[in-house]
């Protein structure tokens, strides 16, 4: 117990500090699109607007379920995504410091290194946007740590931990699934030779089966509910560009669209900037090369994952890659041989990573980076998902609204309630879908030019509604790609 108290204190302090930071950002108007979306889903679940189908098809499930659980378990009033983020960042601090201390670093060095990793500006900005990125970093750290242990000890718990971390990664962010794919060819560098000597295929299967199970399970659930086993993945592919980023691009390097091979130098630069300790680790462990093999796999995983995502038509912000790299760096720090090297060298590499993180934020910002930087500096900003937020605010107090709020949960965050909305899969919505005649007082639809068009079920029913309106309905709202119509006679009578 006495040994856990310092770690618990560190966790609590980190949680408090990070919550304070999020409060500061919120005070200056910064609310990320991911937070808005998760909050909206929480509201939908609370108000019974989400059916089992929506629950089952939630992807990535872990950040969503974490924030839903907090909203249900603690209070619907608190900003669940922020609490989830803070809790995971606190957990990362505890786990990382503990692993560093167990590896032989002094407490002060361990705290400094964990702080440098977490407070690297790129990682910090991602963590402020929502729980996905810290969850990704946690998964990457678990994957890295268990990979090193598995290579060194060949223990069953390490094998389970390693394969579970891969499955966890696949559940915490779509990009993480590509990291796992990118990592797959290098699993041979993680498995101890005595394990693969009997059968390489068996070793691979034991590691990758949980990932296959998770993805196969997702396809099966998708098939059960939509009769389309690949529907979930198609949806993800369509949405990957705006997962938490609302489809807006940042700087020149924020999305790579010039082909996977051309992107390779950029990915390599990201590794060099954010995780120099991985590359330095290879040098430090040159005398224990068999044990260092997982380092090679970790270095290659993120760039290869990014390239695979590009090849398969998914486009993720490059900044996102900082999250797994930070986790890998933390895992590597704990295995570097201290008895042969001065800890200061490792510490310098970690500090260099924090500087690289700042450079990354400048070179490859995502859509929300400018607002985050401004809010951090104490300037007032507008949330990037302002369109959904404003629409939601405009719909406050209005009931009997036909709207696909489940595809744009930010609306619910702005409205603070799902009650009074007629959303997909409700009886009213399905009747409208079948009859193609609206029966609600209000109808909200997104622009045909908007990226939201693909997933807006109202737009699918009334493709010309946004542009031409409907007979008997008058436009009462038109702002940032959304329009709301109200039934005329009621409007007159009202």
């Amino acid at each position: 117990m006495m040994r856990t108290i310092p770690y618990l204190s560190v966790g609590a302090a980190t949680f408090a500090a990070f919550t304070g930071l999020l409060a500061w950002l919120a005070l200056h108007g910064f609310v990320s699109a991911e937070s808005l979306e998760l909050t909206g889903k929480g509201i939908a679940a609370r108000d019974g607007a989400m059916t089992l189908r929506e629950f089952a098809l939630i992807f990535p499930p872990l950040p969503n379920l974490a924030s839903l659980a907090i909203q249900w378990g603690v209070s619907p009033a608190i900003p669940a995504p922020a609490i989830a983020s803070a809790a995971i960042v606190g957990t990362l601090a505890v786990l990382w410091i503990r692993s560093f201390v167990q590896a032989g670093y002094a407490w002060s060095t361990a705290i400094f290194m964990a702080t440098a990793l977490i407070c690297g500006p790129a990682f910090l900005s991602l963590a402020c946007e929502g729980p996905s990125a810290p969850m990704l970093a946690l998964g990457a750290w678990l994957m890295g740590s268990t990979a090193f242990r598995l290579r060194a000890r060949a223990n069953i718990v390490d094998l389970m931990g390693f394969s579970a971390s891969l499955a966890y990664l696949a559940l915490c962010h779509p990009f993480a699934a590509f990291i796992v794919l990118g990592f797959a060819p290098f699993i041979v560098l993680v498995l101890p030779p005595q394990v693969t000597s009997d059968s390489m295929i068996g070793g691979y299967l034991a590691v990758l089966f949980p990932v296959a199970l998770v993805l196969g399970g997702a396809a099966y659930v998708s098939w059960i509910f939509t009769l389309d086993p690949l529907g979930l993945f198609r949806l993800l592919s369509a949405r990957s560009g705006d997962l938490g980023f609302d489809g807006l691009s940042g700087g020149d390097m924020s999305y790579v669209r010039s082909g996977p091979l051309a992107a390779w130098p950029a990915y390599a630069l990201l590794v060099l900037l954010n995780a120099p300790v991985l590359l330095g680790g290879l040098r430090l462990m040159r005398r224990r090369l068999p044990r260092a093999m997982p380092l090679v796999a970790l270095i290659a995983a993120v760039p290869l994952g990014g390239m695979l995502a590009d090849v398969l038509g998914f486009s993720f912000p490059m900044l996102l890659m900082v999250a797994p790299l930070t986790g890998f760096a933390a895992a590597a720090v704990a295995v570097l041989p201290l008895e042969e090297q001065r800890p200061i060298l490792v510490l310098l590499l970690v500090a260099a990573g924090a500087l690289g993180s700042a450079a990354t934020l400048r070179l490859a910002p995502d859509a929300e980076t400018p607002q985050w930087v401004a809010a951090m500096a104490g300037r007032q900003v507008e949330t990037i998902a302002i369109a959904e937020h404003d629409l939601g605010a405009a719909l406050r107090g209005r009931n009997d609204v036909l709207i696909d709020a489940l595809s744009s949960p930010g609306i619910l965050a702005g409205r603070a309630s799902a009650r009074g909305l007629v959303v997909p899969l409700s009886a009213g919505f399905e009747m409208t879908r079948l009859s193609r005649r609206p029966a609600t007082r209000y109808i909200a639809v997104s622009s045909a030019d908007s990226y939201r068009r693909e997933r807006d079920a109202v737009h699918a029913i009334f493709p010309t509604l946004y542009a031409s309106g409907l007979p008997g309905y008058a436009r009462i709202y038109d702002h940032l790609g959304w329009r709301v119509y109200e039934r005329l006679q009621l409007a007159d009578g009202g």
Partner: protein
Amino acid sequence: MSRWWIRADVFSRALAAYHGLPFVRLADGEPDADLLNAADVDVYLQNLVIPWRRRDGVLQLATCEPGPKMLLFARARWGAAIEFVVASKFDIIEAVQRRFSADLSHGAVHELEETDPEMSARRVISRGQAIAMYLMVTALAAGLAFEPLATIITLNALLTLFYFGSFVFKGVLVWAGGIGQLASARAIDAEVRLLRDEDLPTFSILVPMFREPDVLPILVRALRNLNYPLAKLDVKIVLEESDHETIEAARALHLEPIFEIIIVPPSQPQTKPKACNYALRFARGEFLVIYDAEDKPEPDQLRKVVAAFRRAPASTACIQCRLNYFNSRENWLTRIFTLDYSLWFDLMLPGLQKLGAPIPLGGTSNHFRIAVLRELHAWDPFNVTEDADLGVRLAQRGYSVGVIDSTTFEEANCSIANWIRQRSRWIKGYMQTMLVHSRRPVKLARAIGPLGVTSFVFFIGGTALSGLLNPLCWGIFLLWFATSTTSLSPLFPPVLLYFSLVNLIAGNGLFIYLMMIAPFRRRWTGLTPWALTVFGYWVLLSIAAYKALGQLIFKPFYWEKTDHGLSTHTKREAALAVASDARTRSQGAVAPASP
């Protein structure tokens, strides 16, 4: 004598001459029946001394171990008016057997039942259990009559919970079992290196056999190869009196005197535990282990067990070693069976030990403190998985079981029909064990705690129950899959449907995954892909479960005999063992056969 450098009778004669005592053959001069007391049988057998005659008021004791220690013991037991004659060890054992065969046989069958009837499987269902079952069936019938949908949904929910609990519990077990295994194994290895031969205790080994003469040489060779002083081994080859074939084969091997052949007189039930109970009376070791005839324990197993007992608290009554197969890659069945055994012994039992839950002991290679075994009245001859039952009884009495990293290799069943016979016996035994120990549920819960009860339910009850329920679940799934019927929808309210989906995907997936990683400890990753075919094995399990249920009702004590020696590997092993025996004899290390 343990190496046949001298014959037992020659040695006994020499010993008599050395001590200046007469040598007698008890087969020619039977002990006086009036001097023998049934209550003293254990004294005779464990100390190898027996009252022989009375001459001029002096009691003559026949012993094979004359000396100061025996003198002190005998004086304390029978007073100062005693004198000794020397007889061979076998003469003494046979004399006791001849005189007390009926008493020993009765004790082997009825001791547990007579001392603690609630713990005996002699009665399949107690009155309380019968009433409880009647009430449950009545409630179910009433539910189906008045609220059929709600009743079926409730049953469905219970089923879902059972499966969910089962896979979560087994996942936790495997994880817990993997933590700290290496450190524990290293500590025992270090302790083994410190053991000196002279400090090692006498170790009794019981080898119950029935109609398996061909595999006997394998075991004899394996026991000779044990890294343990042969003179401190007390091996009992336990044979049924009706099994002339194996008795002849055992005698034909002309085994050295550390091997004693114990002939069990005929009585019902004719089960392995009854034979072991009978032989236990003859055991003289501090510890005792059971091996099957085709077993090949790792040479340092007994030393590891002694080291483990020394490291363990006094409450540790048994050390279970791992079991696995030497013919694992013979065919599909042996591969999957090996995965199953690896999962059970390498991953799950260490988990049970770590969590302090009762361990259903495996059929062989469980090493007991012999005193505890006798205190618990040994095995239940009416239970066909007597070891699993004994594991729960040990836990109920506050004893614990340790698991160590030493393997006994056996022959994996390579024939499906033979496998179903074996597995149906195991499942029937688990059903018996479940019924016996649920007779006093409150006492059980108090004795083994909530974790123990969870383990008991999922490990012992769950094994049998899942075998019975699986076909029902598969049937429902296949019906829905093939017909896309919506008639089942009312039985699956949303939450239940979601849980059922989790069970279907995560539960089955986890079980397959656990099978996949089961051979990891042994680095047998070549077996891993075969885990993908485990569904066929589950089908066989269900067939065995229904056979077991039928037998529980109609033939509860019937011992389904598993045939050994079917494997080509075993035949090769047997041939090697015979050749090795012949080679050793030709090199003169073994003395000429003794009559």
